[in-house]
């Protein structure tokens, strides 16, 4: 029984990291139509900034703030300098993001070599309850994810900014005619999503070592969760993240462990066939930008 409970906790931990990535993906992809496959590299940059800050002797909380600010700023520069020119042609944006993956990876390799980077665990306590081991650092990540989800959800559903954003997703031209600065809102969402990737990277390196190539797998799962949950749907991203986390945890624990990743993507394919807007409904993604 303790092994079973441990696997549930493992699944929750996996879900929290995936969900954090998926929220950034679902906001950017779902609400602006920008298909940024380099989102995983944004996450990696967040981890690298955290590593640099901690290596320089700064505390982990300060490093997290720096990672959020640095990746948010990078998002702003890239949106204004690159992606805004592709808004009318999402496919171009997609290709740009693929190129950006290689560029960002190699910039990091050039300056900080390709080897693994890690930081000392910010929290080292491990609680043992009836044979189940709970690492405090994982609990920290789960709690931060819950807070980020709650804030993002409130911002999208209840704030003036969120209402204007949703209006521009429904009908960009009408929203613009009503005085909503659509382009500025798109920049804002891109920066927010990027900042969340920075936070994700900081939390990721608190859990695991990272390399300049860590982003690839993470972003694929982020897109899978965003699509399963429904693009632009934060509640959907959370639910889909939980489903995938539990599926991954249990398949590794009890099934054919080598197929763990495959389960996630089979699930995504099935959902996209049966419910093209995701399990919980969402936007149509890039179509709204055309």
């Amino acid at each position, binding site marked *: 029984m303790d*092994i079973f409970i441990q696997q549930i906790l493992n699944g929750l931990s996996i879900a929290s990291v995936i969900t954090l990535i998926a929220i950034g993906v679902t906001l950017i992809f779902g609400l602006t139509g920008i298909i940024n496959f380099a989102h995983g590299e944004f996450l990696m940059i967040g981890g690298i900034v955290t590593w640099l800050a901690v290596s320089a002797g700064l505390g982990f909380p300060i490093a997290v703030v720096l990672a959020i600010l640095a990746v948010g700023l990078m998002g702003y520069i890239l949106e204004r300098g690159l992606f805004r020119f592709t808004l009318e042609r999402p496919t171009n944006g997609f290709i740009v993001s693929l190129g950006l993956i290689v560029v960002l990876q190699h910039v990091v390799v050039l300056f900080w070599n390709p080897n693994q980077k890690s930081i000392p665990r910010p929290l080292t306590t491990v609680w043992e309850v009836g044979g189940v081991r709970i690492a405090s650092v994982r609990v920290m990540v789960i709690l931060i994810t819950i807070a980020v989800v709650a804030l993002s959800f409130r911002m999208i559903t209840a704030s003036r900014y969120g209402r204007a954003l949703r209006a521009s997703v429904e009908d960009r031209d009408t929203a613009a005619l009503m005085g909503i600065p659509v382009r500025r809102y798109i920049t804002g969402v891109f920066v927010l999503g990027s900042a969340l990737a920075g936070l994700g990277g900081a939390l990721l390196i608190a*859990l*695991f*070592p990272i390399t300049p*190539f860590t982003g690839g797998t993470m972003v694929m799962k982020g897109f899978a969760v965003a699509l399963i949950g429904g693009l632009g749907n934060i509640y959907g991203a959370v639910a889909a993240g939980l489903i995938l986390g539990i599926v991954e945890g249990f398949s590794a624990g009890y099934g054919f*462990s*080598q197929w*763990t990743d*495959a389960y996630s993507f089979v699930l995504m394919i099935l959902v996209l066939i049966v419910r093209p807007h995701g399990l919980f409904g969402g936007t149509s993604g890039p179509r709204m930008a055309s």
Partner: protein
Amino acid sequence: MKTVLKLAASAALCLGAFAHPAFAEDNIVKIGVVAAESGSFVSAGHTLPAGVGLAVKQINDAGGFKVGGKTYKLEMVKRDDRTDIATAIAATQELVRDVKVQAIFGSETHDFTLAMAKITQPAKIIHFAGNSTLAKILNPDSVKPGGEDHYLFQSEPQEFQRSGSTARGVLSLLEPLLGFKPKKSVMIVGNDATGQFLSSYYYKALKAEGQDVPDIIFYPPDTTDFSPFLTRAKSLNPDIIHFWYNGDSTLTALPQALELGAAKSYFLFGVDPGIWKEKQLSADVPVAMSCVPVCWGESSNPKAKAYFDAYFAAGAPHGVTSSVSLLYHDYVHFLVEAWQKADSFDPDKTVEALLNLHHQGVVSDDLTFNPTHQVTHATEVCAAAPGGAISCAMQQPPAEAPKS
């Protein structure tokens, strides 16, 4: 995979018509390196150009080498395969056809090397790969003169030898640290071609040492969260969890294993004690490490310290498996010695010389190739006691593969 090999074979046919080993008109001999300097296999990949580059520097700094009365120097031409087989094939084509290298080193990945050999061998390019999986294609027929792999050499021991010496070393070093004889082992292995190949031999080696191995748990490459795999292993109550390949994944998994208390001890394949010390890693249980072939950071091999001092002084990054560089460094010197002995760059004469030489390298004072172009040497295994003291020992390979 078959399609890729067919593509490589077609390319080789085209190349064969006009690609001949480069002759050094300006007394520079070019040797190529194809390695993963980016992508998921980078931790092993970046050691190849670093090891070959160091050997090239050593040879050139010593004044070069003489063949046919002329003095030559070496030039390394390296290409990043980005851990992508199509890129590795394209890079090999370029090195053979355009750069006209005399020899190629790499790659570290099983299926990449097979595809590369389809290009290097018809072009009669001497090809070294530190890749035990070459045993699948190196046999008396394939390496004979005129055979399809006559110019291909495996610079890593056969896998039954490496697995056998590793399993024996791990068990013998962990037993005194555990205070009892370990009986039950679980393996956690990366699920790719190399992982599957290596683990099949290591499983047999553990069984031959009397271990009960109730499960081999495969994880998808690029896994970062190992907790469900480790929890599964923990449910089997093992004395040792063996992380077999690759080093980056292993160092990601170990802290998670220690948090979960998954086993009484661990073995990390392809992790140098040097990185253990540099990252200030520690564990409350014994942890064994094996190097490929001798260890950086703590070694019983007297030449190792001088080698790694020179290796890092030349600018190589402190990687998790820096010792892999020795599967290439020694063979640049070996190749140059063969050219000198043959007094020719002719590939057939070079092969003959390679098969008849006893080379004094860092890894061993007596490196030789067997008739199927494979080397034999010991493997070094180390163990860190709880508290940090590390001890290492060279483990000689078994004479024969286990029967079962």
